[in-house]
């Protein structure tokens, strides 16, 4: 069989915004699944110990949680087609318990899978062009991107093409599959940070150089977890054609020198902190200079071979689209409210992007039922060219909605509880699975998130409070970003009982990126909810005109907030 005769059938239209698989990609996945099948077999017949098997199961996205096995499926650069989303609904319904959990790293987790069924699940996922490869383990993880890629007005290049290149390149990388620790990469095609670029092992933004050519600004050594660190710029003018060579140089230095004996010191951030960024940069440049750059160059041929497998959105001019939307907004208050909070401008004047909030009051943040997935897949097909994006804040986006059709879409979304008008507001809480699922957790996080959401469920109150983000984590690993949220809640363990610490003043994005400060001693679940109520009331009293929570906090400093929570106690 000739692996290179894969120019795809021109009759089948390609899914937009993402790379469409060809024969080679399908065959590769089959080989991978067969390998995992045989690893499971060797585990069951005793040839592999759990210690030997674990890295392989992790590299296939299978975790053991408290109550069951969890399977993490990658959604590369956050783009799904309707077909893929239906595939996820199928897995949720027939192999899990009817729902899935979207994470902050553009993955979806199924919490109730069985190891013995995983190969069958993987086979089904492969048929809809999804996989779980490297969603865990000490390797290069799912490459994430900007949820407004291909939509945003400030975009310089389409980051998804490069994200796909990195996805392929990192897949079973012979040199980098046994790194000291996990390795996370995110990329945006804009110079405005929408991806929290300073908090990845490698974060990439795109800028224009003096010749007006796109270049990458590369951040390294950021991360959250036990030791949160803001990344540093290692290079601000990397020509895109050298992306892979430069990444290999960065990761090779890390693979050789990162700590192997202390789990908490093994991320690249610690190595860079120890060596200093200038020293690290010097080593990377030395490696880079020694490499045969032609071997790595992203030539026009390579770019074309990737790009031609991406479906392109067919955007049309729609007479009076803006006027129609304006009219709908005037006529319907609730719709207007939703558009205010849950939309994002599109570069095409007749289109708009819309954020589907997965933060329903009373529900688990980030969870979506199989029925909702199927419904949204249909709606995406009808109203957004069959494409759905996953955000890094556990919401979804329909990227290409005609302005004149937004109203009908909203009506349909409402039927499935998918039109919650709270994006960016206090109830749009980012929340990890916490102790209800996670084997590493100290305390539950979902219960906290739900309680805060119900406390502030009045939309007028939410609007009055204004933009504010909360992250709730069950442990210091910070999967829900509590370190870099305006308000972070962190679960701690005191003799087997749940307590919570509050952090204030965190900010996720480049210009003001800040790791929050601890407010004071840990509180019980009830106390923490009361504390947040007090904090918000205090802010509402103290705020000056046009201030958001974070502005008031930065102006006043932490002490008055501390007093409000701890004085009476």
């Amino acid at each position: 069989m000739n692996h290179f005769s894969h120019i795809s059938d021109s009759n089948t239209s390609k899914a937009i915004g993402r790379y469409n698989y060809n024969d080679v990609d399908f065959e590769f996945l089959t080989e991978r699944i067969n390998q995992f099948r045989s690893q499971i077999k060797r585990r069951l017949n005793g040839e592999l110990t759990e210690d030997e098997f674990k890295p392989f199961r992790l590299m296939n996205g299978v975790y053991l949680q408290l109550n069951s096995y969890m399977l993490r499926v990658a959604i590369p650069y956050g783009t799904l087609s309707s077909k893929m989303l239906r595939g996820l609904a199928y897995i949720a319904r027939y192999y899990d318990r009817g729902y899935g959990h979207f994470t902050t790293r553009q993955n979806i987790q199924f919490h109730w899978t069985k190891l013995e069924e995983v190969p069958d699940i993987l086979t089904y996922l492969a048929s809809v062009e999804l996989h779980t490869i490297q969603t865990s383990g000490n390797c290069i993880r799912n490459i994430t991107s900007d949820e407004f890629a291909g939509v945003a007005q400030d975009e310089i290049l389409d980051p998804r093409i490069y994200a796909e290149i990195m996805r392929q390149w990192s897949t079973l990388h012979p040199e980098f599959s046994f790194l000291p620790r996990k390795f996370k990469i995110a990329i945006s095609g804009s110079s405005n940070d929408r991806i929290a670029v300073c908090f990845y092992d490698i974060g990439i933004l795109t800028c224009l150089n003096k010749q007006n050519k796109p270049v990458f600004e590369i951040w390294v050594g950021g991360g959250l977890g036990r030791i949160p660190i803001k990344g540093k710029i290692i290079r601000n003018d990397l020509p895109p054609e050298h992306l892979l060579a430069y990444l290999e140089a960065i990761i090779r230095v890390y693979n050789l020198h990162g700590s192997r004996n202390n789990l908490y010191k093994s991320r690249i951030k610690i190595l860079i902190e120890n060596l200093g960024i200038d020293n690290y940069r010097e080593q990377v440049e030395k490696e880079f200079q020694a490499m045969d750059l032609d071997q790595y160059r992203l030539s026009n041929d390579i770019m074309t071979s990737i790009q031609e497998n991406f479906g392109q959105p067919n955007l049309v001019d729609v007479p009076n689209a803006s006027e129609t939307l304006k009219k709908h907004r005037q006529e319907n208050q609730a719709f207007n409210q939703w558009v205010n909070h849950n939309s994002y401008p599109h570069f095409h004047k007749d289109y708009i992007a819309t954020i589907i909030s997965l933060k329903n009051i009373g529900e688990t943040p980030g969870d979506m039922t199989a029925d909702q997935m199927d419904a949204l897949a249909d709606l995406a097909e009808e109203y957004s060219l069959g494409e759905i994006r996953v955000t890094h804040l556990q919401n979804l986006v329909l990227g290409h909605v005609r302005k004149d059709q937004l109203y009908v879409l909203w009506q349909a979304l409402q039927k499935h509880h998918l039109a919650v008008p709270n994006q960016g507001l206090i109830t749009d809480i980012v929340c990890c699975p916490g102790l209800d699922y996670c084997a590493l957790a100290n305390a539950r996080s979902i219960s906290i998130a739900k309680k805060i959401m119900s406390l502030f469920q009045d939309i007028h109150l939410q609007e009055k409070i204004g933009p504010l983000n909360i992250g709730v984590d069950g442990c210091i690993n910070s999967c829900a970003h509590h370190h870099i949220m305006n308000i972070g809640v962190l679960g701690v363990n005191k003799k087997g009982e749940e307590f919570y610490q509050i952090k204030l003043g965190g900010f996720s994005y480049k210009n003001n990126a800040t790791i929050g400060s601890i407010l004071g001693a840990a509180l019980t679940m009830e106390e923490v909810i009361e504390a947040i109520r007090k904090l918000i009331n205090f802010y509402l009293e103290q705020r000056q005109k046009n201030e958001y929570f974070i502005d008031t906090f930065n102006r006043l400093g932490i002490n008055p907030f501390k007093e409000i929570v701890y004085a009476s106690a």
Partner: protein
Amino acid sequence: MLLLKDGEVIDNPWVTIEDHLPTSLPEYPILSYSLLSTLDDNDKINQPLGVLFPCDLDIELLNPFLKKLSLIALIFPTFKDGRAFSQARQIREHLKFTGELRATGQVLPDQYQFLTRVGFTTIMIPEITNIENWKENHHHFTIGFQNSILKEARHGLVRKL
């Protein structure tokens, strides 16, 4: 221990010497790097020579000995410690070493193609092992997506292994 090459068990003529130098060397000696570095005049040696090189040193240290070396053995303290993958690659690409590159320590069959693609040619494996696993894994994947020492035919990013 068994020695594996291209998925087949082969004879291993090499003898590893780690502690101190004997008065006369065996025909095919692999010296630990610390012994090798004490040879004050390695130019005098006129026989095949190998080195067992630790995973926490810079491969540049091998430069002075390169012309004399027919074999470099690298170490995987556990299969999860991937430093030798990068060392192998640097030895092939930066030092342009063309002799035998041997993997020692703990490696698993599932890592076989990773090893060959970064430049290893032979692997030491325990006697009690399922050779069929190694054979199967030697050519399990027919597709790869990265540059490799083996310079496989490519189309776009895809290589036919």
